[in-house]
């Protein structure tokens, strides 16, 4: 079978070292091959069917087969590696901002390096290194931040001077450069050949590969994949993997039950030239000039140069499934600005002759991160696509994580930032995708400063108060399509200036947020928190309680009207979700989770709750507007509006009661604020939202009420050492590791998910510990601000990374939260982290290469809690992420 599939590959340029295989070149494209009938019929069933024979599909097949799975069929509508993979520029670079992406790229590089030896297929792997140039100081800061991350991961990386750049690459004009980042281990490789090598290895391990076989749709029964229909018949299967690249969206929509995969293609151009008179060395490093929006690599003695223009051309919005993407037009006028940037960077290339301008569509996603994981609606339906033009760099690592996910039920790293379930149907509109990818593609090169937001595809989900808040100066950010207030610009402020407060240093809104924080501490503020995910779970009997007791680590068998903060843990004790649950009645519960949990949490519950008609799970997110009243005077405002006493004796902390506010009845009031400050959250049926808001603002006037935004909330929660799911907490973090043992009831009288691991950790200790750092010698006005992802050093040795940070207006210091590990000095092995280990260390936080002293704390400053109530029930959880 291996010989057969390789014969079908005859038009792709590759050379096999295996003696049995003939050498073939692209010139030998045989017409008879394509007319030939399919000699091998499809199997009637398989365990896994993979659709897509590009780098993703072959990498998944390779890794699955490596993990011992053999019963795998890979289907490709055209020929292997003939889509985007074939046109890929061939650059493998580890210079990635997000840690999970960096890990994938690092793994890919190592994999490709040994692939030729493993498979005998020549991959053209060449370790050339790469140089990322900075034309501005801000760009250099962003490169330094990446360099810090790479260094602690053990990836060689260096910030170099412009002079050093010239030594690495003689053609570069360095006059406008302020510095650069050099990664000596970055490589060039032929992506089509990598894909063929992976396919060869997979095929040797038993994977069946069928080309020119089109999947028409996937059949799903009772929420499970049952098989695929192809133009050559049906294959029954347990698992389906959609690696269809830019066709993934349509393949997802082809079945009766759609699987929403938000990807959209854009044209991508690069230039090939003839060789220079003195051909360029094939070991010359790849040059990335993000400020010029271009990359340049050596190619057969000449160069290959492409880029990410400001005005991308999205295509296939109408969804024509074009098998042949070869026919796309070259567009020189469109490429003009990139050509200018190229000649500015390498003026010596003027006389170089053009060979071709290649138009190679790439698929992009709404948030610039790739998409992997299992469909929320169809079990066994996996997806790996949307590589945002970094498919080759991610291919190896992404295929590995997805294979682990299929085989083990979870990958070996936290891949939540890439999980398909971070999106819902709301990101699946073609218009939304078209507009968003037009913003995403230029962003590949744009400088990304802290707190940047997408500008397209906005105002999709809004609170009923949106216009009111907007008219009062609200500035907005977006989460899961929902508009949320960052802060309120006071009347008379210079608006234009504030909108351009994009900086790595102290931002312009510093004082604005400061005054909102002050108001939360001294009077009362109102924050619209309607975006939170809200579920109701109820049953006719005790099923709701019984099932929730199993799925949540805290004890939910509390008196009616109590609110419980609890983790929703996986079997490894890690946080799948962190939420607040109010017991509304004996048999019904109200659950509040972070905004972006809407799909993930729903899927988790659906998959874990028994199929029992007595048990009803309902998403009521859209039914309620949530107003968070934070501050010592919240109690006064609310009691005046409800004619009910709201003091701690009558309405203790972590309590929930339906009451009237103004004329509106049935408002769910909870004594939580997600900040540790006193106050309440009001869950208001949406038709009352405006009324209640107006009442609160009118009544609040005499107590000094004002609007506030999420930046104030974040500052408050971080100075109180509150971890947020999605930012600080993930599926690899247990309550024991973040000081939340008090939210775990190991003795609640029944078994719950993750219990074993937690018991074990309680006995033997934990291997990482959530820690709060107060920056000591950091000048808020002059120094770079921390963001997240900064390396933490203990006694000069790397121990972990920060997960969030904020300026504390109370402490007048920056606070970073992050995890401390204990690596053995000799072996690097992870050891138990004890309280002493945390307390007996000198800490530093590395911000873009500059280290700042920090004081580590395992508990928040008690002085920050103005009112302590029931000692064990001080609200120690917030959970939405910013």
């Amino acid at each position: 079978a291996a010989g057969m599939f390789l014969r079908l590959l005859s038009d792709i340029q590759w050379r096999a070292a295996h003696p049995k295989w003939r050498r073939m070149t692209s010139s030998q494209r045989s017409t008879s091959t394509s007319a030939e009938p399919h000699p091998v019929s499809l199997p009637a069933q398989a365990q896994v069917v993979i659709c897509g024979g590009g780098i993703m599909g072959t990498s998944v097949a390779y890794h699955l087969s490596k993990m011992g799975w053999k019963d795998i069929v890979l289907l490709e509508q055209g020929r292997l590696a003939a889509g985007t993979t074939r046109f890929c520029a061939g650059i493998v670079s580890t210079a990635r901002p997000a840690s999970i992406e960096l890990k994938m790229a690092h793994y890919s590089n190592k994999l490709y390096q040994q692939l030729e030896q493993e498979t005998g297929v020549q991959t053209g792997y060449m370790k050339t290194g790469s140089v990322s140039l900075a034309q501005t100081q801000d760009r250099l800061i962003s490169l330094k931040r990446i360099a810090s991350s790479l260094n602690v991961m053990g990836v060689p990386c260096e910030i170099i001077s412009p002079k050093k750049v010239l030594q690495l690459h003689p053609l570069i004009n360095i006059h406008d450069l302020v510095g650069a980042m050099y990664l000596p281990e970055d490589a060039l490789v032929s992506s089509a050949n990598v894909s063929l090598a992976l396919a060869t290895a997979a095929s040797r391990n038993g994977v069946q590969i069928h080309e020119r076989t089109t999947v028409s749709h996937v059949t799903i029964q009772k929420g499970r994949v049952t098989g695929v229909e192809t133009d050559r018949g049906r294959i029954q299967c347990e698992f389906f993997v959609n690696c269809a690249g830019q066709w993934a969206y349509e393949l997802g929509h082809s079945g009766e039950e759609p699987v929403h995969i938000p990807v959209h293609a854009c044209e991508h151009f690069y230039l090939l030239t003839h060789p220079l008179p003195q051909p360029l060395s094939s070991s010359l490093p790849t040059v990335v000039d993000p400020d010029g929006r271009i990359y340049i690599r050596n190619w057969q003695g000449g160069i290959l140069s492409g880029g990410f223009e400001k005005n991308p051309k999205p295509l296939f919005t109408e969804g024509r499934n074009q098998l042949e993407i070869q026919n796309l037009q070259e567009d020189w006028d469109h490429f003009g600005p990139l050509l200018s940037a190229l000649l500015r960077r390498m003026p010596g290339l003027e006389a170089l002759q053009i060979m071709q301008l290649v138009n190679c569509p790439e698929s992009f996603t709404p948030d610039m991160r790739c998409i992997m994981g299992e469909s929320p609606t169809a079990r066994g339906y996996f997806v790996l696509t949307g590589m945002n033009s970094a498919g080759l760099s991610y291919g190896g690592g992404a295929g590995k994580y997805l294979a682990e996910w299929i085989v083990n039920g979870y990958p070996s790293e936290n891949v939540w930032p890439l999980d398909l379930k971070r999106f819902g149907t709301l990101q699946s509109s073609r218009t939304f995708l078209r507009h968003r990818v037009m913003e995403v593609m230029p962003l590949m090169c744009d400088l990304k400063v802290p707190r940047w937001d997408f500008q397209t595809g906005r105002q999709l989900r809004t609170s009923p108060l949106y216009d009111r808040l907007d008219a009062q100066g609200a500035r907005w950010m977006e989460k899961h399509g929902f508009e949320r207030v960052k802060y309120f610009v006071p009347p008379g402020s210079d608006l234009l200036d504030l909108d351009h407060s994009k900086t790595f240093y102290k931002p312009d809104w510093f004082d604005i947020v400061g005054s909102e924080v002050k108001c939360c501490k001294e009077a009362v503020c109102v924050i619209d928190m309607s975006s939170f995910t809200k579920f109701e779970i109820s049953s006719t009997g005790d099923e709701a309680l019984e099932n929730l007791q199993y799925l949540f680590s805290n004890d939910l068998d509390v008196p009616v009207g109590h609110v419980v903060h609890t983790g929703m843990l996986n079997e490894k004790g890690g946080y799948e979700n962190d939420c607040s649950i109010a017991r509304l009645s004996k048999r019904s519960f109200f659950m509040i989770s972070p905004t972006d949990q809407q799909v993930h949490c729903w899927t988790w519950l659906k998959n874990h709750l028994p199929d029992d008609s007595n048990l009803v799970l309902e998403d009521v997110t859209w039914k309620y507007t949530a107003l968070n009243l934070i501050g010592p005077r919240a109690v006064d405002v609310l009691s005046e509006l409800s004619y009910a006493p709201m003091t701690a004796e009558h309405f203790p902390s972590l309590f929930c009661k339906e009451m009237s506010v103004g004329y509106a009845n049935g408002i769910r009031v909870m004594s939580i604020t997600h900040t540790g400050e006193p106050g309440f959250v009001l869950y208001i049926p949406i038709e009352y939202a405006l009324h209640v808001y107006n009442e609160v603002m009118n009544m609040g006037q005499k107590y000094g009420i004002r609007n506030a935004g999420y930046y104030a909330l974040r500052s408050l929660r971080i100075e109180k050492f509150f971890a947020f799911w999605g930012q600080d907490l993930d599926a690899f973090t247990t309550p024991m590791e973040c000081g939340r043992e008090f939210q775990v009831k190991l003795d609640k009288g029944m078994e719950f998910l993750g219990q074993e691991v937690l018991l074990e950790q309680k006995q033997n200790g934990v291997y990482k510990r959530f820690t709060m750092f107060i920056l000591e010698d950091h000048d808020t006005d002059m120094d770079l601000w921390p963001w997240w992802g900064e390396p933490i050093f203990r006694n000069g040795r790397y121990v972990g990374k920060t997960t969030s940070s904020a300026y504390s207006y109370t402490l007048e210091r920056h606070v970073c939260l992050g995890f401390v590990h204990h690596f053995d000095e000799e072996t690097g092995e992870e050891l138990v982290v004890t309280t002493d280990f945390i307390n007996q260390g000198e800490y530093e936080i590395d911000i873009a290469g500059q280290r700042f002293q920090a004081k580590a704390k395992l508990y928040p400053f008690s002085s920050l809690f103005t009112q302590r109530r029931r000692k064990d029930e001080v609200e120690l959880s917030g959970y939405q992420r910013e």
Partner: protein
Amino acid sequence: FYLTPPQVNSILKANEYSFKVPEFDGKNVSSILGFDSNQLPANAPIEDRRSAATCLQTRGMLLGVFDGHAGCACAQAVSERLFYYIAISLLPHETLLEIENAVENGRALLPILQWHKHPNDYFSKEASKLYFNSLRTYWQELIDLNSGETTDVREALINAFKRLDNDISLEAQVGDPNSFLNYLVLRVAFSGSTACVAHVDGVDLHVANTGDSRAMLGVQEEDGSWSAVNLSYDHNAQNEHEVERVKMEHPKSEEKSLVKQDRLLGLLMPFRAFGDVKFKWSIELQKRVVESGPDQLNHNEYTKFIPPNYFTPPYLTAEPEVIHHKLRPQDKFLVLATDGLWETMHRQDVARIVGEYLTGVHHQQPIAVGGYKVTLGQMHGLLTERRARISSVFEDQNAATHLIRHAVGNNEFGTVDHERLSKMLSLPEELARMYRDDITIIVVQFNSHVIGAYQNEE
């Protein structure tokens, strides 16, 4: 003293407006892609007006240009009111009843029109109540009439034009207790305005014209060249039929005095117009209204002056001529413009300039390297040159602006001469009117795909 190119642009672009028909999920299902409009004043203040709106209770879009004379009051009023009269005329009986009931019971009205206005296109707040009451009387009459027949667009347009002119006339005769409004309705009635209005609904294009503004269809021939099709007749002395009509309506004894120096009664250029009660009312009525009117009116020499040889009024009507055209895929755009444009440019040139402008956006000859030996430097030079050339053409984002630039700045070779443009635009107010008239242009771009699909259906 010359204006710099940016100064010229800021003058030309001050009043430009563009509207793109919103797409639904990436598709535009309307036969109209959008329109560009602009106006360049010569009078101070400008006496031209323009309007554009989408009918919300029936299908279709309305666009119109209005050329005022003897002040801008009449053109202003017509630009605010005419589309409401047309929309009401098009409404089915049930909708009229629904609207009347809503007003009767103080409920919110169904929105009738969605306006597409430049910020400078203002509506008179003071007169809105008065205008509304007149409009309401009109629909109440329509309800009482209830012909039961489906509304014919041609008839609706004619009725609306005539009715509005009638209301303008009546409001001036009745007057208003509020002295500001009283003066306003008189100024509206004593000034005049032409109107050229297009109604586009699918492939049905109706143009109703009163006066000497003009509607012209831009057609792309099979060989790619451009030709112009008139969709209106000018109502002025150059139009034999129009002269004939006027003569028919009056005794033979007046034949010589009716049209003198190419003007109606030797005074008025357009032969049809709104307002202009001096050419419609009897002498007695004019005298009575002027005398009982406010002092400002009495002191105005124009209003007191009675046209010579004024024996058998009315001499003037607002009744439009309506032309119906079924849109075809080769019909690419429609130009509505006041005579300020047409007296400087031939319609064939207008068709060519707009056509090339509109298609230039889409059909620029792409460069292909093919088998040629081209270096990066040569390609860069070529692209830079192309960009420069494009940017001069596309200095204008708006087809109407582009047309005005040509109308004002064209030299004898038919290309824009910056020096000439600069001179024309820097003329002092009192001189400007000598060299050019107010120009108002709307360019409507059609959606050939949708029009083609309609054709295939039929």
